[in-house]
């Protein structure tokens, strides 16, 4: 198991947003995390990546307890996420943003004595990542000037540039048109098989075609973990989440 959580609990005041969540993510996983709005999916990712601290429970990455580790350190150990609501560097260009990530990953970001241009490999790598996501054309425009959908892609590019072992995607395709979101998921799908991916998505078509396992979260607790087909048929899931339309 690359990533394991053991009985994670978290509450905001009286609101329990994570109840006893234990999940396992094996190498190469392509898991989806679904559930009604406000079920606690984003919170769960915040807990795994360290933006929030659980009230109880443990998080293990590669068998090591990282519950008390800082976010940045988790990223360096290969646990990366994207944000549901764009969290970018508005005045940097995508090229600069991604290069920054690569430099951080290579531990070169602290080298204040070396010019940025001399990190040729880093720049080229980030350009390659951007090209892969179809952002080559806008790579040298300030991020703030990109359309929303393009910014969503930059969000993914930043995550990919950390070379994660575990990639947590929070509604990566929201706001990206159909054909591009398919492309995006193809990029995700074609990531090396040793990367485990957990993605939140409300678009069932994507969930059912890219996920090997689906975890359903309701009111902070895991309702069910199963294959897409099983989930599709589960009456409880239909009741609280899918509605009539999918079947």
């Amino acid at each position, binding site marked *: 198991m690359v990533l394991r959580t053991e009985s994670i609990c978290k509450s905001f005041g009286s609101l329990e947003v994570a109840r006893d969540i234990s999940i396992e993510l094996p190498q190469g996983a392509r898991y989806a995390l679904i559930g*009604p709005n*406000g*079920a606690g999916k984003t919170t769960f990712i915040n807990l795994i990546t360290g933006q929030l601290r659980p009230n109880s429970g443990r998080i293990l990455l590669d068998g090591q307890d990282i519950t008390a580790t800082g976010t940045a350190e988790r990223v360096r150990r290969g646990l990366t996420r994207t944000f549901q609501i764009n969290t970018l560097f508005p005045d940097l260009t995508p090229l600069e943003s991604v290069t920054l990530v690569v430099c951080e990953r290579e531990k070169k970001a602290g080298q204040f004595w070396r010019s940025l241009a001399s990190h040729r490999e880093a720049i080229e790598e980030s350009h390659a990542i951007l090209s892969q996501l179809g952002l080559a054309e806008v790579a040298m425009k300030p991020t703030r000037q990109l359309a929303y959908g393009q910014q969503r892609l930059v969000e993914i590019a930043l995550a990919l540039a950390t070379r994660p072992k575990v990639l947590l995607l929070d*509604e990566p395709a929201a706001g*990206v048109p159909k054909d591009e979101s398919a492309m995006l998921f193809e990029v995700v799908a074609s990531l090396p098989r040793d990367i485990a991916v957990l993605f939140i998505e*409300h678009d069932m078509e994507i969930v059912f075609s890219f996920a090997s396992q689906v975890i359903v979260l309701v009111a902070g607790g895991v309702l069910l973990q199963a294959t897409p087909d099983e989930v599709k048929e589960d009456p409880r899931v239909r009741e609280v989440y899918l509605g009539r339309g999918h079947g």
Partner: protein
Amino acid sequence: MAEPLLELKDVRSGYSDAVVLDNVSVSVGAGESLAVLGRNGVGKSTLLLTIIGIVRTMRGTIRFKGQDITRLSPDKRALLGIGWVPQEREIFRSLTVEENLTVASRPGRWNLDAVYALFPRLKERRGNMGDQLSGGEQQMLAIARTLMTNPSLLLLDEPLEGLAPIIVEELTAAIRRMAEDEGLTLILVEQHADVALRLTDRAIILERGLVAHAAPSAELLSDRATLDRNVGLKLESA
């Protein structure tokens, strides 16, 4: 024929360093609903921003309810009855959910009870600060907040994004009700072309800043070739 509720004539608009829309002419009659389709970054959001007045109209005119509103500020346009739901939700972070709803509310059919009935989730979270909501809840709040102003023309920028399927179902039903039963005029920007086309009477496709194609929604829904060519959208076969 009566004058349309909203009419854009040869509008050019954009940002200080880029013209995004040029020569766009659109008109929407009262009670009509219009879908705006197009690729990423083509200017769909900019069109809505131009109508509400956040993006400056550089050329052309916009008329609403028979009045030239090209030079009016957004708040004046809102008071005339235009309501806009931003793509990025843009919830007021330092207001509670309920304050978000009431801060700009104007009397009409949509009041707290009505929006809470539409989105029960918001009622549960009414005391939360705006930035302590989940993504989907923010989306609901953004829609509800605009409904509370009781607009006669509703501009929706990808309103279904980030909502659970069951909520999408309810919301589309509600939108259809608004359009069909209450005669609300609607402009809907949506990535899910099929959903958008089923909800609306007419549709336009934007392409490189121009209206590349305009047709009744039902017709377009079956004209997959045009959709594929102009929008590059692969339709879901739902």
